[in-house]
């Protein structure tokens, strides 16, 4: 343990070694003297002491350990394999490709399933049979039948005038 006398005799400006600093930081009586020799020791006198957090070291360590346990508990509840951004993109791309592929395969295996086309071809045929009925024979007492003469071909044009016939025949 350095004495105050030794300290005051040997202190040089800008030359405070560890032992000198230790004495300075423990001895209030030498503080004024030290500062008159080397003002840079003004703030250096603050160092060195063991500072204890409010509440003491035991309470502090207890708090830290509880926080560590809470942290570990939270970590164990979190998903073990967190999915990174690029993995998420890869999963999304795979799902999209799968859906597209399945759609194309379905269409390839079921080519007739085109409802617009069916309607387009069915409709004129139905109209023709309904509105343009074909008459092979006709017999009536009230009708006037006029046979148009042709130029020797097989085609015959026949005109029927009968009030009982439907208008669209």
């Amino acid at each position, binding site marked *: 343990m350095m004495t105050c006398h030794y300290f005051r005799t040997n202190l040089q400006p800008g030359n405070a070694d560890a032992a000198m600093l230790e004495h300075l930081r423990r001895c209030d009586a030498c503080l004024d003297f030290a500062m008159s020799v080397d003002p*840079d020791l003004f703030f250096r*006198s603050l160092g060195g002491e063991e500072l204890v957090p409010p509440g003491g070291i035991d309470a502090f360590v207890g708090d830290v350990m509880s926080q*560590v346990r809470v942290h570990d508990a939270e970590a164990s509840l979190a998903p073990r394999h967190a999915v990174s951004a690029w993995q998420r993109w890869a999963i999304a791309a795979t799902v999209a490709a799968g859906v597209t592929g399945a759609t194309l395969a379905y269409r390839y295996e079921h080519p007739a399933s085109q409802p617009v086309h069916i309607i387009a071809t069915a409709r004129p045929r139905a109209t023709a049979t309904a509105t343009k009925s074909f008459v092979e024979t006709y017999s009536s007492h009230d009708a006037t039948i006029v046979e148009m003469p042709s130029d020797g071909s097989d085609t015959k044009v026949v005109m029927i005038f009968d009030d009982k016939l439907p208008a669209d025949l």
Partner: protein
Amino acid sequence: MAAEVLRMIPTKESVELDDRQLVEQIRQGDDGAFETLVRRKTSKVYGLCYRVIGNSEDAKDISQLVFLKLWENLEKYDATYAFDTWLYRMVTNVAIDFMRSKQSRDNAVNSNLRLVKTSVDPEQTVTVARKEVESVFNAVSNVLSPKQKTIFVMSEMEDLRSSEIAKVLGCRESTVRNHLFNARKLMQTQLKKRFPEYARLWEESR
């Protein structure tokens, strides 16, 4: 014979594991080793936080945060480097971040201290008390940037060499010396301005 063998096996109490060995034990799942490490480093971590932050409650919170970060990142510690350097780096990073976010609020505390201290007659003989030095330091050190203050504290109060501080902060030694020079200059200017009774000590001795 058996008794002799037993005597040669070190008991848990007789063996003081160094920091690296403790870290190794923690990595193997020993929570008790971490508690030992926290107990061993509390004064060091809290002391640095308190000097840099200047408030005991904030320093306590920041110290706890440092230990929690230590627990989270212990796997990243490279045992080829000194454990204290790694720990100091963590402390300074967290403390500097905190200081930057809180710097504006500290001004209020600063002005209160100035009102108290400027009531002292500049001509009166000053007897310096350690508590006063602490108050003066808290008041005038607020002109420093968080990094300057951290370097000043590590150099002047924790007695770290410039080379050690450079390792902690991951910068050049010349950068540390530059910061230190500027910090001292700013502190002296502030001292003259706000605490002329203490500034006289400088003028008288030079």
